[in-house]
């Protein structure tokens, strides 16, 4: 038995084309990814009765997607704004809805274009800032969580003796895996020198510590294991899921109780307390990499090594690369596949557990862990065959 009320499985994964260039209509991206996932699962739009989108204000709502697909009715649905664990929020909500019986088969989506959110732009909004932002923006904080990421890295340098090169192992690893992923946008290998030479954005945060904004959509379809048994693919069971916020949450991830780890520590503890397996059983890890610091936090929080031990544990990157003991972010993740924003980590885990990843397939993968986000927005799942 899993920790859920009804046994739940991921039965379909789909993507739109992922591209750096162009200005696609997000409706076409959402439609392409949804149809691709339905086809993967062997389901029809009429089988979908739940739909969830973690999205920014300017991304499309689930009603639009339901209408385009011709879904006759939704028994459970939500457009979820930005206090959840990134795109995985869509799938976590879908799991809860199916497990509870609120719906039978749910479509989880993350669809975004480079035009949405604050991607790389220069803010010219001069209206007064309220809430927690009044204690950040007048100081030039700006740009979401970037200054906090640089500050976290600097603190690890002092507290754990990490160096810039420690972070470089995550960036280099993403490209090694992406080279074997046809969907990935950045498939050229990089060296440590390339990483170190990338532009300092919020020093010590370098450009190659940051995700790569793209246009794209990603869909996961979730239903009961009972229903899954009749579908096209080998079902991948959701063994456990967890959220956490930690104390004193804020949307800028600035003032929470644990700057270095955000809520990854309580989230990981909660996840393992519910799972039927342990960290030692994990064959493949898909750990959010909006910034390299986030991946390192999750590796330590999940207990693959102790706090501050990533530097020695990662063994120059061998541990997380092809053939390593913990193959990590095997799609290239946000850093190299392109930032489709969180849900892609779930899809990659599902395809690894089905054995469908071709050249980058991790042999005999049976257990995967998937995590999203940092600050007070941590979310995670354990999946197994």
């Amino acid at each position: 038995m899993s920790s859920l009320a009804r046994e739940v499985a991921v039965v379909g994964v789909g993507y739109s084309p992922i591209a750096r260039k162009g200005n696609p209509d997000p409706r076409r991206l959402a439609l392409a990814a949804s149809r691709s996932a339905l086809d993967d699962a062997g389901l029809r739009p009429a089988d979908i009765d739940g739909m969830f989108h973690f999205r920014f204000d300017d991304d499309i709502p689930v009603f639009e997607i339901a209408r385009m697909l011709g879904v006759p009715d939704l028994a459970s649905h939500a457009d979820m704004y930005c206090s959840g664990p990134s795109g995985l929020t869509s799938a976590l909500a879908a799991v809860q809805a199916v497990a509870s019986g609120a719906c039978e088969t749910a479509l989880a989506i993350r669809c975004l274009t480079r035009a949405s959110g604050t991607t790389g732009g220069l803010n010219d909004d001069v209206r007064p800032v309220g809430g927690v932002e009044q204690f950040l923006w007048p100081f030039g904080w700006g740009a979401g969580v970037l200054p906090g990421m640089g500050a976290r890295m600097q603190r690890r340098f002092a507290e754990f003796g990490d160096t810039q090169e420690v972070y470089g192992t995550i960036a280099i690893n993403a490209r090694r895996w992406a080279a074997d992923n046809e969907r990935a946008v950045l498939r050229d290998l990089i060296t440590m020198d390339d990483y170190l030479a990338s532009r300092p954005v919020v020093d010590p945060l370098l450009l190659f510590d940051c995700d790569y904004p793209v246009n794209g959509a990603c869909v996961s379809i979730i239903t009961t294991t009972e229903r899954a048994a009749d579908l096209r693919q080998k079902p991948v069971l959701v063994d456990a899921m967890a959220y956490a916020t930690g104390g004193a949450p804020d949307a800028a991830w600035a003032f929470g109780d644990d700057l270095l780890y955000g809520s990854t520590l309580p989230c990981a503890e909660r996840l393992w307390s519910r799972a039927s397996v342990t960290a030692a059983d994990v064959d493949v890890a898909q750990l959010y990499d909006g910034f390299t610091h986030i991946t390192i936090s999750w590796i330590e929080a999940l207990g693959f090594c102790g706090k501050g031990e990533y530097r020695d544990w990662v063994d120059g990157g061998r541990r997380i690369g092809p053939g390593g003991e913990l193959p990590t972010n095997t799609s290239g993740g946000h850093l190299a596949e392109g930032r489709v924003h969180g849900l892609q980590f779930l899809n990659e885990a599902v395809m690894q557990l089905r054995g469908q990843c071709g050249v980058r397939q991790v042999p005999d993968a049976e257990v995967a862990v998937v995590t999203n986000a940092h600050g007070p927005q941590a979310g995670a799942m354990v999946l197994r065959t």
Partner: protein
Amino acid sequence: MVLDGGMGVTTTVDVGASATKPVPLVDEASRDFWEGARQHRLVIQQCEACRHHLYPPAIVCKWCLSEDLAARDVSGRGTLYTFATVNQAFHVGFVDDVPYVVGYVDLEEEPGVQIITNIVGASPDELKIGMPLEVVFDDRDEYSLPQFRPVPA
């Protein structure tokens, strides 16, 4: 002018003397902090029930949930917990300021209670985590901003 917003995104904006930095929207909880700053006083909330300090200001104590919060003038001394150097402007009001430093400062009265601020008066390579700092105030048109600088030797 056309600015490189990073990652290949460029934006055309009107910058220069007219570009304004964000102005705080003062509320019930933050009024004492911003009014104090205007008078070059660093004002931090202290809970009358449990005596812990609070930052950013709130209407409920995060430690004991009391609503009995007092505004206290503090020493303005602290130590540098961590920092980062912003090399790329993300708001038009800071285009002429880069590079500048955003830092977390532990307040002397209660280390662990931190203010996020700018570290001024030193280049980033002169900064060291743990170094003593003191408050200074940057007077802007509509408000004053508490920033910190290394304590002179």
